[in-house]
Protein backbone atom coordinates (compact mmCIF):
# COMPACT_ATOMS: atom_id res chain seq x y z
CA UNK A 1 0.00 0.00 0.00
CA UNK A 2 1.67 3.12 -1.21
CA UNK A 3 0.14 6.32 0.09
CA UNK A 4 -0.02 8.67 -2.85
CA UNK A 5 -0.65 12.32 -2.19
CA UNK A 6 -2.29 13.17 -5.46
CA UNK A 7 -5.09 10.60 -5.50
CA UNK A 8 -8.27 11.30 -3.58
CA UNK A 9 -9.04 8.90 -0.73
CA UNK A 10 -11.86 7.22 -2.65
CA UNK A 11 -9.54 6.39 -5.54
CA UNK A 12 -6.97 4.62 -3.43
CA UNK A 13 -6.81 0.85 -3.62
CA UNK A 14 -6.54 0.13 0.11
CA UNK A 15 -9.48 2.39 0.84
CA UNK A 16 -11.76 0.78 -1.72
CA UNK A 17 -10.75 -2.75 -0.79
CA UNK A 18 -10.57 -2.66 2.98
CA UNK A 19 -11.52 0.61 4.61
CA UNK A 20 -14.82 1.23 2.86
CA UNK A 21 -16.39 -2.17 3.57
CA UNK A 22 -15.16 -1.94 7.17
CA UNK A 23 -16.72 1.50 7.45
CA UNK A 24 -20.07 0.20 6.21
CA UNK A 25 -19.89 -2.61 8.78
CA UNK A 26 -19.15 -0.23 11.66
CA UNK A 27 -21.96 2.05 10.55
CA UNK A 28 -24.50 -0.78 10.40
CA UNK A 29 -23.46 -2.03 13.87
CA UNK A 30 -23.75 1.48 15.27
CA UNK A 31 -27.25 1.90 13.84
CA UNK A 32 -28.23 -1.50 15.22
CA UNK A 33 -26.82 -0.69 18.65
CA UNK A 34 -28.48 2.74 18.73
CA UNK A 35 -31.84 1.41 17.57
CA UNK A 36 -31.87 -1.24 20.32
CA UNK A 37 -30.84 1.14 23.06
CA UNK A 38 -33.04 4.08 22.09
CA UNK A 39 -36.17 1.96 21.74
CA UNK A 40 -35.21 0.07 24.90
CA UNK A 41 -35.68 -3.33 23.20
CA UNK A 42 -35.31 -6.05 25.82
CA UNK A 43 -32.20 -8.20 25.40
CA UNK A 44 -34.20 -11.44 25.33
CA UNK A 45 -36.18 -10.20 22.30
CA UNK A 46 -33.55 -8.61 20.14
CA UNK A 47 -30.03 -8.12 21.50
CA UNK A 48 -27.73 -5.27 20.56
CA UNK A 49 -24.23 -6.11 19.20
CA UNK A 50 -22.65 -5.54 22.62
CA UNK A 51 -25.10 -7.96 24.21
CA UNK A 52 -24.21 -10.60 21.65
CA UNK A 53 -20.51 -10.10 22.38
CA UNK A 54 -21.18 -10.42 26.12
CA UNK A 55 -23.09 -13.69 25.54
CA UNK A 56 -20.29 -14.91 23.32
CA UNK A 57 -17.76 -14.25 26.09
CA UNK A 58 -19.95 -15.92 28.72
CA UNK A 59 -20.83 -19.00 26.64
CA UNK A 60 -17.37 -19.27 25.05
CA UNK A 61 -16.42 -22.78 26.29
CA UNK A 62 -19.65 -24.40 25.04
CA UNK A 63 -19.74 -22.43 21.81
CA UNK A 64 -16.09 -22.98 20.92
CA UNK A 65 -16.59 -26.72 21.35
CA UNK A 66 -19.61 -26.59 19.04
CA UNK A 67 -17.63 -24.54 16.54
CA UNK A 68 -14.86 -27.14 16.58
CA UNK A 69 -17.35 -29.90 15.90
CA UNK A 70 -18.99 -28.05 12.98
CA UNK A 71 -15.64 -27.02 11.58
CA UNK A 72 -14.41 -30.62 11.71
CA UNK A 73 -17.45 -31.80 9.74
CA UNK A 74 -17.02 -28.91 7.29
CA UNK A 75 -13.35 -29.59 6.64
CA UNK A 76 -13.82 -33.34 6.32
CA UNK A 77 -16.71 -32.80 3.88
CA UNK A 78 -14.67 -30.27 1.92
CA UNK A 79 -11.72 -32.66 1.64
CA UNK A 80 -14.07 -35.44 0.56
CA UNK A 81 -15.70 -33.19 -2.04
CA UNK A 82 -12.34 -32.12 -3.44
CA UNK A 83 -11.12 -35.70 -3.62
CA UNK A 84 -14.22 -37.11 -5.29
CA UNK A 85 -14.91 -34.00 -7.36
CA UNK A 86 -11.49 -33.88 -9.00
CA UNK A 87 -11.43 -37.65 -9.36
CA UNK A 88 -14.75 -37.62 -11.21
CA UNK A 89 -13.69 -34.65 -13.32
CA UNK A 90 -10.56 -36.48 -14.45
CA UNK A 91 -12.72 -39.51 -15.23
CA UNK A 92 -15.16 -37.37 -17.25
CA UNK A 93 -12.51 -35.92 -19.52
CA UNK A 94 -11.12 -39.34 -20.37
CA UNK A 95 -13.90 -40.06 -22.82
CA UNK A 96 -17.14 -38.55 -24.06
CA UNK A 97 -18.79 -41.87 -23.36
CA UNK A 98 -17.97 -41.72 -19.65
CA UNK A 99 -18.93 -38.07 -19.43
CA UNK A 100 -22.29 -38.48 -21.13
CA UNK A 101 -23.19 -41.56 -19.11
CA UNK A 102 -22.27 -40.10 -15.72
CA UNK A 103 -22.82 -36.35 -15.91
CA UNK A 104 -26.63 -36.48 -15.61
CA UNK A 105 -26.19 -38.19 -12.23
CA UNK A 106 -23.78 -35.51 -11.09
CA UNK A 107 -26.52 -32.98 -11.90
CA UNK A 108 -28.89 -35.08 -9.84
CA UNK A 109 -26.64 -34.39 -6.85
CA UNK A 110 -26.91 -30.71 -7.57
CA UNK A 111 -30.67 -30.40 -7.97
CA UNK A 112 -31.74 -32.56 -5.01
CA UNK A 113 -32.27 -30.37 -1.93
CA UNK A 114 -29.95 -31.58 0.81
CA UNK A 115 -32.61 -31.18 3.49
CA UNK A 116 -34.64 -33.81 1.62
CA UNK A 117 -31.91 -36.45 1.49
CA UNK A 118 -30.22 -35.71 4.80
CA UNK A 119 -32.71 -37.68 6.94
CA UNK A 120 -32.15 -40.71 4.72
CA UNK A 121 -28.36 -40.45 4.96
CA UNK A 122 -28.54 -39.93 8.71
CA UNK A 123 -30.62 -43.07 9.13
CA UNK A 124 -28.51 -45.15 6.77
CA UNK A 125 -25.13 -44.10 8.14
CA UNK A 126 -24.71 -45.22 11.73
CA UNK A 127 -22.07 -42.79 12.92
CA UNK A 128 -23.61 -39.32 13.16
CA UNK A 129 -20.43 -37.43 12.46
CA UNK A 130 -19.85 -39.50 9.30
CA UNK A 131 -23.46 -39.00 8.23
CA UNK A 132 -23.14 -35.24 8.61
CA UNK A 133 -19.88 -35.28 6.65
CA UNK A 134 -21.48 -37.24 3.82
CA UNK A 135 -24.45 -34.83 3.64
CA UNK A 136 -22.20 -31.79 3.50
CA UNK A 137 -19.92 -33.40 0.93
CA UNK A 138 -22.91 -34.20 -1.31
CA UNK A 139 -23.74 -30.49 -1.44
CA UNK A 140 -20.16 -29.35 -1.86
CA UNK A 141 -19.02 -31.73 -4.56
CA UNK A 142 -20.87 -30.40 -7.60
CA UNK A 143 -19.04 -27.11 -8.14
CA UNK A 144 -15.77 -29.01 -8.00
CA UNK A 145 -16.92 -31.57 -10.55
CA UNK A 146 -18.34 -29.05 -12.98
CA UNK A 147 -15.57 -26.46 -12.67
CA UNK A 148 -12.72 -28.94 -12.90
CA UNK A 149 -14.32 -30.74 -15.85
CA UNK A 150 -14.79 -27.42 -17.63
CA UNK A 151 -11.23 -26.43 -16.77
CA UNK A 152 -9.69 -29.65 -18.02
CA UNK A 153 -11.52 -29.14 -21.29
CA UNK A 154 -10.75 -25.43 -21.64
CA UNK A 155 -7.35 -25.95 -23.14
CA UNK A 156 -6.13 -23.50 -25.77
CA UNK A 157 -6.52 -25.51 -29.01
CA UNK A 158 -3.40 -23.85 -30.40
CA UNK A 159 -1.35 -25.08 -27.46
CA UNK A 160 -2.88 -28.52 -27.82
CA UNK A 161 -1.78 -28.57 -31.48
CA UNK A 162 1.66 -27.43 -30.39
CA UNK A 163 1.90 -30.31 -27.92
CA UNK A 164 0.71 -32.76 -30.54
CA UNK A 165 3.19 -31.47 -33.11
CA UNK A 166 6.00 -31.93 -30.62
CA UNK A 167 4.91 -35.50 -30.10
CA UNK A 168 3.99 -34.95 -26.45
CA UNK A 169 2.67 -37.99 -24.59
CA UNK A 170 -0.67 -38.20 -22.82
CA UNK A 171 0.92 -37.73 -19.40
CA UNK A 172 3.03 -34.78 -20.54
CA UNK A 173 -0.06 -33.11 -21.99
CA UNK A 174 -1.97 -33.71 -18.78
CA UNK A 175 0.73 -32.45 -16.46
CA UNK A 176 2.09 -29.55 -18.49
CA UNK A 177 -1.08 -28.39 -20.21
CA UNK A 178 -4.40 -29.67 -18.89
CA UNK A 179 -3.77 -29.29 -15.18
CA UNK A 180 -2.36 -25.74 -15.35
CA UNK A 181 -5.19 -24.72 -17.71
CA UNK A 182 -7.74 -26.14 -15.29
CA UNK A 183 -6.25 -24.54 -12.19
CA UNK A 184 -8.18 -21.22 -12.28
CA UNK A 185 -11.45 -23.10 -12.82
CA UNK A 186 -10.63 -25.59 -10.06
CA UNK A 187 -9.82 -22.79 -7.61
CA UNK A 188 -13.07 -20.99 -8.43
CA UNK A 189 -14.78 -24.29 -7.67
CA UNK A 190 -12.94 -24.48 -4.32
CA UNK A 191 -14.16 -21.01 -3.34
CA UNK A 192 -17.78 -21.99 -3.92
CA UNK A 193 -17.39 -25.45 -2.48
CA UNK A 194 -15.86 -24.41 0.85
CA UNK A 195 -18.86 -22.18 1.56
CA UNK A 196 -21.22 -24.99 0.57
CA UNK A 197 -19.41 -27.44 2.89
CA UNK A 198 -20.18 -25.17 5.83
CA UNK A 199 -23.79 -24.69 4.75
CA UNK A 200 -24.08 -28.45 4.25
CA UNK A 201 -22.64 -29.18 7.68
CA UNK A 202 -25.03 -26.77 9.41
CA UNK A 203 -28.10 -27.94 7.45
CA UNK A 204 -27.26 -31.57 8.17
CA UNK A 205 -26.88 -30.81 11.88
CA UNK A 206 -30.29 -29.16 11.86
CA UNK A 207 -31.84 -32.20 10.23
CA UNK A 208 -30.03 -34.55 12.62
CA UNK A 209 -31.57 -32.42 15.36
CA UNK A 210 -30.68 -32.57 19.00
CA UNK A 211 -30.64 -36.33 19.07
CA UNK A 212 -27.15 -36.59 17.68
CA UNK A 213 -24.21 -36.82 19.99
CA UNK A 214 -21.86 -34.57 18.06
CA UNK A 215 -23.13 -31.17 19.04
CA UNK A 216 -22.26 -28.50 16.49
CA UNK A 217 -23.31 -24.90 16.15
CA UNK A 218 -26.67 -25.79 14.63
CA UNK A 219 -27.32 -27.93 17.69
CA UNK A 220 -26.51 -24.91 19.88
CA UNK A 221 -28.91 -22.75 17.85
CA UNK A 222 -31.65 -25.35 18.19
CA UNK A 223 -31.06 -25.72 21.93
CA UNK A 224 -31.06 -21.95 22.40
CA UNK A 225 -34.26 -21.59 20.40
CA UNK A 226 -35.99 -24.16 22.64
CA UNK A 227 -34.92 -22.07 25.63
CA UNK A 228 -35.80 -18.80 23.83
CA UNK A 229 -32.21 -17.69 24.42
CA UNK A 230 -32.05 -15.29 21.50
CA UNK A 231 -28.67 -13.67 22.33
CA UNK A 232 -27.12 -17.13 22.36
CA UNK A 233 -28.67 -17.87 18.94
CA UNK A 234 -27.11 -14.72 17.63
CA UNK A 235 -23.77 -15.62 19.14
CA UNK A 236 -23.80 -19.02 17.41
CA UNK A 237 -24.91 -17.39 14.16
CA UNK A 238 -22.04 -14.93 14.48
CA UNK A 239 -19.56 -17.79 14.80
CA UNK A 240 -20.97 -19.54 11.70
CA UNK A 241 -20.68 -16.33 9.67
CA UNK A 242 -17.14 -15.66 10.81
CA UNK A 243 -16.18 -19.24 9.95
CA UNK A 244 -17.69 -18.87 6.49
CA UNK A 245 -15.83 -15.64 5.83
CA UNK A 246 -12.62 -17.15 7.16
CA UNK A 247 -12.89 -20.16 4.85
CA UNK A 248 -13.61 -17.93 1.87
CA UNK A 249 -10.62 -15.70 2.61
CA UNK A 250 -8.43 -18.75 2.96
CA UNK A 251 -9.47 -19.98 -0.49
CA UNK A 252 -9.09 -16.51 -1.99
CA UNK A 253 -5.58 -16.37 -0.52
CA UNK A 254 -4.78 -19.76 -2.00
CA UNK A 255 -5.98 -18.57 -5.42
CA UNK A 256 -3.85 -15.48 -5.16
CA UNK A 257 -0.84 -17.54 -4.16
CA UNK A 258 -1.21 -19.96 -7.06
CA UNK A 259 -2.50 -17.66 -9.79
CA UNK A 260 -1.49 -14.19 -8.71
CA UNK A 261 1.22 -13.74 -11.26
CA UNK A 262 -0.61 -14.90 -14.35
CA UNK A 263 -4.36 -15.15 -14.15
CA UNK A 264 -6.81 -12.26 -14.48
CA UNK A 265 -9.11 -13.50 -11.72
CA UNK A 266 -6.41 -13.10 -9.08
CA UNK A 267 -4.69 -10.01 -10.42
CA UNK A 268 -4.46 -6.69 -8.69
CA UNK A 269 -6.32 -4.05 -10.64
CA UNK A 270 -3.64 -2.23 -12.52
CA UNK A 271 -3.89 1.52 -12.29
Amino acid at each position, binding site marked *: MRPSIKKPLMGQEWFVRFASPALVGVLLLAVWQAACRMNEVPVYLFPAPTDIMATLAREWPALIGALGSTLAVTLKAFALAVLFGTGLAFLFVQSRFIEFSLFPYAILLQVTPIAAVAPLIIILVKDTSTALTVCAAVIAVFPIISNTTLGLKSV*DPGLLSFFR*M*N*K*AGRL*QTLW*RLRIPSALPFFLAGLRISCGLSLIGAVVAEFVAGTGGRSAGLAYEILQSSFQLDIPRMFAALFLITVTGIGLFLLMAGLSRLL*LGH*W*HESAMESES
Partner: protein
Amino acid sequence: MKHQEASLRVVSASPAPTAADPAEAPPVVDILSAEKVFANGMRGLAPIDLTIRQGEFVSLIGPSGCGKSTLLKLVANLHQPSDGRIAWWRGDFRRVGEAGRRLAFVFQDPTLMPWARVDANVRLPLDLAGVPRAGAAPRVAAALEQVGLGRHGRHYPRQLSGGMRMRVSIARALVTEPNLLLMDEPFGALDEFTRNKLDDDLVQLSWERQLTTVFVTHSIYEAVFLSTRVIVMAANPGRVFHEFAIDEPMPRGDAFRGSARFAELCRGLSAVLTEASIASQRRD
Protein backbone atom coordinates in the same frame (compact mmCIF):
# COMPACT_ATOMS: atom_id res chain seq x y z
CA MET B 1 -1.09 -14.43 -68.74
CA LYS B 2 -1.30 -10.82 -69.75
CA HIS B 3 -1.14 -9.21 -66.36
CA GLN B 4 2.41 -10.25 -65.68
CA GLU B 5 5.03 -7.57 -65.50
CA ALA B 6 8.56 -7.72 -66.77
CA SER B 7 10.13 -8.22 -63.37
CA LEU B 8 7.79 -10.99 -62.21
CA ARG B 9 8.82 -14.34 -63.51
CA VAL B 10 6.26 -17.04 -63.93
CA VAL B 11 7.58 -20.33 -62.65
CA SER B 12 4.45 -22.42 -62.67
CA ALA B 13 4.98 -23.73 -66.17
CA SER B 14 8.63 -24.68 -65.94
CA PRO B 15 10.58 -23.75 -62.82
CA ALA B 16 13.29 -21.36 -63.90
CA PRO B 17 16.38 -21.18 -61.72
CA THR B 18 16.74 -18.03 -59.65
CA ALA B 19 19.95 -16.34 -58.53
CA ALA B 20 21.02 -19.04 -56.05
CA ASP B 21 19.70 -21.71 -58.37
CA PRO B 22 17.17 -23.24 -55.94
CA ALA B 23 16.02 -25.68 -58.59
CA GLU B 24 19.22 -27.55 -57.83
CA ALA B 25 18.60 -27.50 -54.07
CA PRO B 26 17.25 -30.72 -52.54
CA PRO B 27 13.50 -30.79 -51.89
CA VAL B 28 12.34 -30.28 -48.31
CA VAL B 29 8.64 -30.83 -48.85
CA ASP B 30 7.07 -32.62 -51.79
CA ILE B 31 3.31 -32.18 -52.02
CA LEU B 32 2.15 -34.89 -54.38
CA SER B 33 -1.43 -34.44 -55.60
CA ALA B 34 -2.48 -33.87 -52.01
CA GLU B 35 -6.13 -32.95 -51.64
CA LYS B 36 -8.34 -32.31 -48.65
CA VAL B 37 -12.00 -33.09 -48.27
CA PHE B 38 -13.30 -32.27 -44.79
CA ALA B 39 -15.48 -34.57 -42.71
CA ASN B 40 -18.51 -32.43 -43.60
CA GLY B 41 -17.94 -33.11 -47.31
CA MET B 42 -16.52 -29.66 -48.01
CA ARG B 43 -13.69 -29.72 -50.55
CA GLY B 44 -10.96 -27.64 -48.91
CA LEU B 45 -8.19 -28.29 -51.40
CA ALA B 46 -8.18 -29.60 -54.94
CA PRO B 47 -5.18 -31.84 -55.66
CA ILE B 48 -2.05 -29.75 -55.25
CA ASP B 49 1.43 -30.44 -56.55
CA LEU B 50 4.16 -28.33 -55.08
CA THR B 51 7.82 -28.78 -54.22
CA ILE B 52 9.52 -26.61 -51.63
CA ARG B 53 13.28 -26.68 -51.82
CA GLN B 54 16.07 -26.12 -49.34
CA GLY B 55 16.58 -22.44 -48.54
CA GLU B 56 13.39 -21.20 -50.17
CA PHE B 57 11.10 -18.67 -48.52
CA VAL B 58 7.68 -19.46 -49.93
CA SER B 59 4.67 -17.28 -49.19
CA LEU B 60 1.08 -18.45 -49.62
CA ILE B 61 -1.34 -15.64 -50.37
CA GLY B 62 -4.94 -15.59 -51.55
CA PRO B 63 -8.49 -14.64 -50.67
CA SER B 64 -9.62 -15.82 -47.26
CA GLY B 65 -10.99 -19.36 -47.23
CA CYS B 66 -8.81 -20.47 -50.15
CA GLY B 67 -7.13 -23.15 -48.05
CA LYS B 68 -3.83 -21.51 -47.08
CA SER B 69 -4.06 -22.69 -43.48
CA THR B 70 -5.29 -26.10 -44.60
CA LEU B 71 -2.30 -26.50 -46.90
CA LEU B 72 0.09 -25.41 -44.18
CA LYS B 73 -1.47 -27.84 -41.71
CA LEU B 74 -1.02 -30.65 -44.23
CA VAL B 75 2.65 -29.71 -44.43
CA ALA B 76 2.82 -29.66 -40.61
CA ASN B 77 1.11 -33.07 -40.49
CA LEU B 78 -1.63 -31.53 -38.31
CA HIS B 79 -4.07 -32.74 -40.98
CA GLN B 80 -3.74 -35.78 -43.21
CA PRO B 81 -4.49 -35.39 -46.91
CA SER B 82 -7.67 -37.16 -48.06
CA ASP B 83 -5.81 -38.27 -51.16
CA GLY B 84 -2.29 -37.94 -52.51
CA ARG B 85 0.66 -37.68 -50.16
CA ILE B 86 3.35 -35.48 -48.73
CA ALA B 87 7.02 -36.30 -48.33
CA TRP B 88 9.41 -34.54 -45.96
CA TRP B 89 13.05 -34.67 -46.98
CA ARG B 90 12.01 -37.42 -49.36
CA GLY B 91 10.77 -39.50 -46.43
CA ASP B 92 7.67 -39.91 -44.33
CA PHE B 93 6.68 -38.01 -41.20
CA ARG B 94 8.03 -40.57 -38.76
CA ARG B 95 11.56 -39.39 -39.46
CA VAL B 96 10.70 -35.72 -38.95
CA GLY B 97 12.33 -34.56 -35.73
CA GLU B 98 15.67 -36.20 -36.42
CA ALA B 99 18.73 -34.02 -36.86
CA GLY B 100 18.50 -32.01 -40.08
CA ARG B 101 14.79 -32.79 -40.39
CA ARG B 102 13.28 -30.58 -37.73
CA LEU B 103 10.06 -28.74 -38.32
CA ALA B 104 8.56 -25.86 -36.33
CA PHE B 105 5.19 -24.15 -36.60
CA VAL B 106 4.33 -20.58 -35.61
CA PHE B 107 0.61 -19.92 -35.21
CA GLN B 108 -1.34 -16.77 -35.88
CA ASP B 109 -1.63 -16.19 -32.12
CA PRO B 110 1.42 -16.48 -29.89
CA THR B 111 -0.26 -19.46 -28.09
CA LEU B 112 1.98 -19.13 -25.04
CA MET B 113 1.32 -20.77 -21.69
CA PRO B 114 0.14 -17.83 -19.54
CA TRP B 115 1.22 -19.57 -16.33
CA ALA B 116 4.82 -20.00 -17.42
CA ARG B 117 7.54 -17.40 -17.67
CA VAL B 118 8.95 -16.47 -21.05
CA ASP B 119 12.00 -18.74 -20.67
CA ALA B 120 9.85 -21.71 -19.65
CA ASN B 121 7.61 -21.10 -22.66
CA VAL B 122 10.59 -21.10 -24.98
CA ARG B 123 11.97 -24.22 -23.28
CA LEU B 124 8.72 -26.16 -23.79
CA PRO B 125 9.67 -28.08 -26.96
CA LEU B 126 12.96 -29.09 -25.33
CA ASP B 127 11.15 -30.19 -22.16
CA LEU B 128 8.75 -32.26 -24.25
CA ALA B 129 11.70 -33.86 -25.99
CA GLY B 130 13.27 -34.70 -22.63
CA VAL B 131 16.28 -32.38 -22.92
CA PRO B 132 17.76 -31.86 -19.42
CA ARG B 133 17.41 -28.38 -17.89
CA ALA B 134 21.13 -27.69 -17.84
CA GLY B 135 21.49 -28.45 -21.52
CA ALA B 136 18.36 -26.48 -22.42
CA ALA B 137 19.22 -23.24 -20.61
CA PRO B 138 21.90 -21.92 -23.00
CA ARG B 139 19.77 -22.82 -26.02
CA VAL B 140 16.80 -20.96 -24.57
CA ALA B 141 18.97 -17.95 -23.84
CA ALA B 142 20.36 -18.01 -27.38
CA ALA B 143 16.89 -18.23 -28.93
CA LEU B 144 15.65 -15.32 -26.81
CA GLU B 145 18.72 -13.31 -27.73
CA GLN B 146 18.03 -14.01 -31.37
CA VAL B 147 14.56 -12.45 -31.24
CA GLY B 148 15.79 -9.51 -29.17
CA LEU B 149 14.25 -10.60 -25.87
CA GLY B 150 17.43 -11.56 -24.05
CA ARG B 151 16.42 -9.54 -21.00
CA HIS B 152 12.81 -10.69 -20.76
CA GLY B 153 13.22 -14.36 -19.85
CA ARG B 154 11.82 -13.93 -16.35
CA HIS B 155 8.70 -12.05 -17.43
CA TYR B 156 5.25 -13.52 -17.80
CA PRO B 157 3.58 -13.33 -21.22
CA ARG B 158 0.95 -10.90 -19.96
CA GLN B 159 3.65 -8.40 -19.11
CA LEU B 160 4.72 -8.20 -22.77
CA SER B 161 3.27 -6.36 -25.76
CA GLY B 162 1.66 -8.23 -28.66
CA GLY B 163 4.80 -7.92 -30.77
CA MET B 164 7.00 -9.21 -27.97
CA ARG B 165 4.71 -12.19 -27.39
CA MET B 166 4.97 -13.05 -31.07
CA ARG B 167 8.76 -12.88 -30.72
CA VAL B 168 8.56 -15.34 -27.82
CA SER B 169 6.53 -17.64 -30.03
CA ILE B 170 9.20 -17.39 -32.72
CA ALA B 171 11.95 -18.04 -30.16
CA ARG B 172 10.05 -21.17 -29.07
CA ALA B 173 10.10 -22.31 -32.71
CA LEU B 174 13.79 -21.48 -33.16
CA VAL B 175 14.98 -23.21 -30.00
CA THR B 176 14.64 -26.62 -31.61
CA GLU B 177 16.93 -25.40 -34.42
CA PRO B 178 14.36 -26.18 -37.12
CA ASN B 179 15.25 -26.71 -40.75
CA LEU B 180 11.71 -26.05 -41.92
CA LEU B 181 9.71 -23.19 -40.43
CA LEU B 182 5.96 -22.97 -41.05
CA MET B 183 4.19 -19.74 -40.17
CA ASP B 184 0.46 -19.01 -40.46
CA GLU B 185 -0.16 -15.25 -40.62
CA PRO B 186 2.13 -14.77 -37.65
CA PHE B 187 2.12 -10.98 -37.75
CA GLY B 188 -1.47 -10.53 -38.92
CA ALA B 189 -2.66 -9.07 -35.63
CA LEU B 190 0.19 -6.58 -35.25
CA ASP B 191 0.43 -2.95 -36.26
CA GLU B 192 2.27 -2.00 -39.44
CA PHE B 193 5.37 -0.70 -37.68
CA THR B 194 5.86 -3.76 -35.49
CA ARG B 195 5.15 -6.02 -38.43
CA ASN B 196 7.84 -4.37 -40.59
CA LYS B 197 10.35 -4.71 -37.78
CA LEU B 198 9.56 -8.38 -37.33
CA ASP B 199 9.69 -8.93 -41.11
CA ASP B 200 13.18 -7.38 -41.17
CA ASP B 201 14.31 -9.68 -38.38
CA LEU B 202 12.74 -12.72 -40.02
CA VAL B 203 14.54 -12.07 -43.30
CA GLN B 204 17.81 -11.77 -41.43
CA LEU B 205 17.18 -14.90 -39.38
CA SER B 206 16.09 -17.19 -42.17
CA TRP B 207 19.04 -16.04 -44.25
CA GLU B 208 21.58 -16.56 -41.47
CA ARG B 209 20.20 -19.94 -40.51
CA GLN B 210 19.54 -21.15 -44.05
CA LEU B 211 15.97 -21.92 -43.05
CA THR B 212 13.36 -23.20 -45.42
CA THR B 213 10.19 -21.27 -44.68
CA VAL B 214 6.55 -21.51 -45.70
CA PHE B 215 4.73 -18.36 -44.72
CA VAL B 216 0.98 -17.63 -44.96
CA THR B 217 0.08 -13.97 -45.21
CA HIS B 218 -2.64 -11.68 -46.49
CA SER B 219 -0.28 -8.77 -46.95
CA ILE B 220 1.04 -8.19 -50.48
CA TYR B 221 3.95 -6.09 -49.17
CA GLU B 222 4.96 -8.75 -46.68
CA ALA B 223 4.83 -11.48 -49.32
CA VAL B 224 6.99 -9.51 -51.74
CA PHE B 225 9.43 -8.37 -49.08
CA LEU B 226 10.05 -11.78 -47.52
CA SER B 227 9.72 -14.35 -50.24
CA THR B 228 11.89 -15.96 -52.81
CA ARG B 229 8.67 -17.38 -54.23
CA VAL B 230 5.05 -16.27 -53.87
CA ILE B 231 2.23 -18.73 -54.43
CA VAL B 232 -1.15 -17.16 -55.14
CA MET B 233 -4.07 -19.41 -54.26
CA ALA B 234 -7.73 -19.29 -55.28
CA ALA B 235 -10.77 -20.77 -53.55
CA ASN B 236 -13.72 -23.04 -54.46
CA PRO B 237 -11.93 -25.34 -54.46
CA GLY B 238 -8.64 -24.29 -52.89
CA ARG B 239 -5.87 -24.49 -55.48
CA VAL B 240 -2.66 -22.90 -56.70
CA PHE B 241 -3.59 -20.06 -59.04
CA HIS B 242 -0.21 -18.63 -59.92
CA GLU B 243 3.44 -18.55 -58.85
CA PHE B 244 6.08 -15.84 -58.87
CA ALA B 245 9.77 -15.92 -58.17
CA ILE B 246 11.12 -12.79 -56.51
CA ASP B 247 14.81 -12.80 -57.25
CA GLU B 248 15.92 -9.89 -55.12
CA PRO B 249 19.08 -10.97 -53.26
CA MET B 250 18.94 -11.72 -49.53
CA PRO B 251 19.09 -10.34 -46.95
CA ARG B 252 16.69 -7.55 -47.79
CA GLY B 253 16.03 -4.35 -45.90
CA ASP B 254 14.52 -0.91 -46.07
CA ALA B 255 16.41 -0.18 -49.28
CA PHE B 256 14.39 -2.88 -51.05
CA ARG B 257 11.15 -1.82 -49.39
CA GLY B 258 11.61 1.74 -50.66
CA SER B 259 12.70 0.78 -54.18
CA ALA B 260 10.69 1.31 -57.37
CA ARG B 261 11.17 -2.37 -58.10
CA PHE B 262 9.42 -3.30 -54.85
CA ALA B 263 6.45 -1.10 -55.75
CA GLU B 264 6.31 -2.65 -59.19
CA LEU B 265 6.37 -6.20 -57.79
CA CYS B 266 3.59 -5.32 -55.37
CA ARG B 267 1.45 -3.89 -58.19
CA GLY B 268 1.95 -7.05 -60.22
CA LEU B 269 1.04 -9.30 -57.31
CA SER B 270 -1.97 -7.17 -56.53
CA ALA B 271 -3.27 -7.59 -60.06
CA VAL B 272 -2.92 -11.37 -59.88
CA LEU B 273 -4.65 -11.43 -56.49
CA THR B 274 -7.60 -9.56 -57.95
CA GLU B 275 -7.86 -12.18 -60.66
CA ALA B 276 -7.57 -14.92 -58.08
CA SER B 277 -10.45 -13.54 -56.07
CA ILE B 278 -12.62 -13.25 -59.19
CA ALA B 279 -11.76 -16.85 -59.99
CA SER B 280 -12.68 -17.79 -56.41
CA GLN B 281 -16.33 -16.82 -56.69
CA ARG B 282 -18.71 -19.71 -56.36
CA ARG B 283 -20.30 -21.04 -59.50
CA ASP B 284 -23.25 -22.98 -58.20
